[in-house]
């Protein structure tokens, strides 16, 4: 059976959920071979194997952390040449897309970014994408070379499918460009203890209506009562009330959770672009004309300072 390369997103061997989703999709096309760069391959291989990776190609080198993007492209290219895969799948993070694009150009394969679904087709994999702020859904395929496809988080459910997950060392030689952009320093983001925004099953976002950083704990308390992540509109981020890493929308994160709750958010097209594919959408807004209400499964017209605390208390009471 044809092999499909899956680029692993992980933190020191802890594999992030979108990679497991990719393994589910990869199995529709062929046999997944994972590419794990950096430390922790043995730990990662267990999880990757449980989810269908027949092999885990790994390489570790200081270059991966010390220089931007290109060393990882060199390594993925080495894996590509070793395996000669039917397709290459990469998680759709900012870095993932850059790696995928450069690889596609090098190997002469067409590139599809931000797929939300993937199926096998007669003429190669067919990718579903959601475009124009999710107002259209398209089906595309690669017509030249090996398809290189980046896939958004929450596009499939990770499925257990035990496979060997045999770890093999990958030999990588870095090209002249690998050391072009030096990472002079790196400050890891502090963990909030909440789920990752793009991976969360539930997201609660606050907008300009939250009216100040000091009120965001209201949003956080609601998110915590549901075990969800916290998001924010650009207006709230630009005002300095919440970090940019939590921004949902066109220039922030794109999320597709089971449940999205928008509090004090009007629903501008750029915000919709990042949340419109959520399964269930709920809004709390005091303006009944707010465009967000066009999207909702359930909406409350009211003051979020009344509704949100009452909702949080009620959820806590029900959960006991």
């Amino acid at each position, binding site marked *: 059976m044809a092999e499909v390369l899956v680029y692993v997103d992980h933190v020191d061997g802890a594999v992030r959920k979108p990679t497991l989703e990719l393994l589910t999709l990869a199995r529709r096309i062929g046999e997944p071979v994972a590419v794990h760069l950096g430390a922790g391959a043995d730990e990662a291989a267990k999880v990757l194997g449980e989810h269908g990776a027949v092999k885990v190609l790994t390489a570790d080198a200081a270059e991966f952390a010390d220089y931007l993007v290109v060393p990882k492209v060199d390594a993925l290219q080495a894996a590509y040449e070793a395996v000669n895969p039917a397709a290459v799948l990469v998680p759709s993070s900012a870095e993932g897309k850059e790696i995928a694009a450069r690889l596609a150009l090098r190997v002469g394969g*067409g590139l599809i970014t931000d797929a939300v679904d993937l199926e096998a087709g007669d003429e190669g994999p067919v990718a579903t994408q959601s475009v*124009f702020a999710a107002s259209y859904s*398209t089906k*595309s395929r690669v017509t030249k070379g090996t398809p290189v496809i980046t896939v958004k988080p929450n596009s499939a459910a990770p499925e257990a499918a035990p496979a060997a997950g045999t770890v093999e060392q990958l030999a990588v030689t870095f090209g002249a460009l690998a050391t072009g952009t030096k990472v002079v320093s790196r400050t890891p983001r502090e963990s909030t203890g909440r789920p990752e925004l793009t991976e969360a099953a539930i997201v609660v976002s606050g907008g300009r209506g939250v009216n100040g950083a000091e009120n965001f704990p209201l949003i956080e308390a609601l998110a915590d009562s549901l075990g969800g992540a916290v998001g924010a509109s650009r207006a709230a981020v630009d005002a300095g009330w919440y970090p*940019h890493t939590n921004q949902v929308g066109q220039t922030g994160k794109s999320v597709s959770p089971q449940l999205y709750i928008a509090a004090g958010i009007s629903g501008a097209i750029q915000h919709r672009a990042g949340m419109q594919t959520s399964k269930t959408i709920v809004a709390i807004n005091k303006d009944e004309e707010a465009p967000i209400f066009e999207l909702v499964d359930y909406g409350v017209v009211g003051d979020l300072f009344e509704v949100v605390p009452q909702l949080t208390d009620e959820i806590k009471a*029900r959960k006991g």
Partner: protein
Amino acid sequence: MSLRIVVCVKYVPDATGDRHFAEDLTVDRDDVDGLLSELDEYAVEQALQIADEADDAEITVLTVGPEDAKDALRKALSMGAHKAVHVEDDDLHGTDVMGTSLVLAKAVEHVGYDLVVCGMASTDGGMGVLPALLAERLGVPQVSLLSQVAVEDGKVTGRRDGDAATEQLEAALPAVVSVTDQSGEARYPSFKGIMAAKKKPVESLDLSDLGIEADEVGLDGAWTKVDSAAERPARTAGTIVKDEGEGGKQLAEFLAGQKFV
């Protein structure tokens, strides 16, 4: 020596208008209002600030697009860029990102450059990969997705706010950078700027000027194909209640019914 900056800007359909596909499943650029992609205004702004800091700098704005894309160039010129290059050719219709990056790479080389500045993503296609492809094609460092950028002593430095960490980056010129919408508000063109822009040179190039064959670009030269595009069914109207003191509880009831609680 003068610092040669090329800013890549895209002319895009207005996101607040109705965007759709043409019959051949390319983005319809005829029936809709277009403008300079808002995210590329940030690129123009950073180029202007870098030029201010340099002793001597020249900013060229570059676009690949239809006739109307000149509007985007004019806007960038009125913000303060010095000259413009417009690559326009009927054979470009339907070009995908691989083709666009080829055309931009050739055009950037044609102009001559020390620094290429791009936006973080176009507001229509929104792939956010062109700067990386351009760096790959030009064989120069990629310093992308910067929320802060500076050029000094033949080096570009900047801050990249990634998912897992904030990174401080550094590369030698020539280089390709892209800047995010966190890099600083873009200026509005002044009246003087708008008047001055009318006299600034706009060079027009076609594929043959750049030594590119028609079959390397366009719909037929694309490495990908859109087979179908369907409008998403409008979300079915949900329940909307007015809060009369019990709104939070009603919402909790709904969430419980959906098994979220």
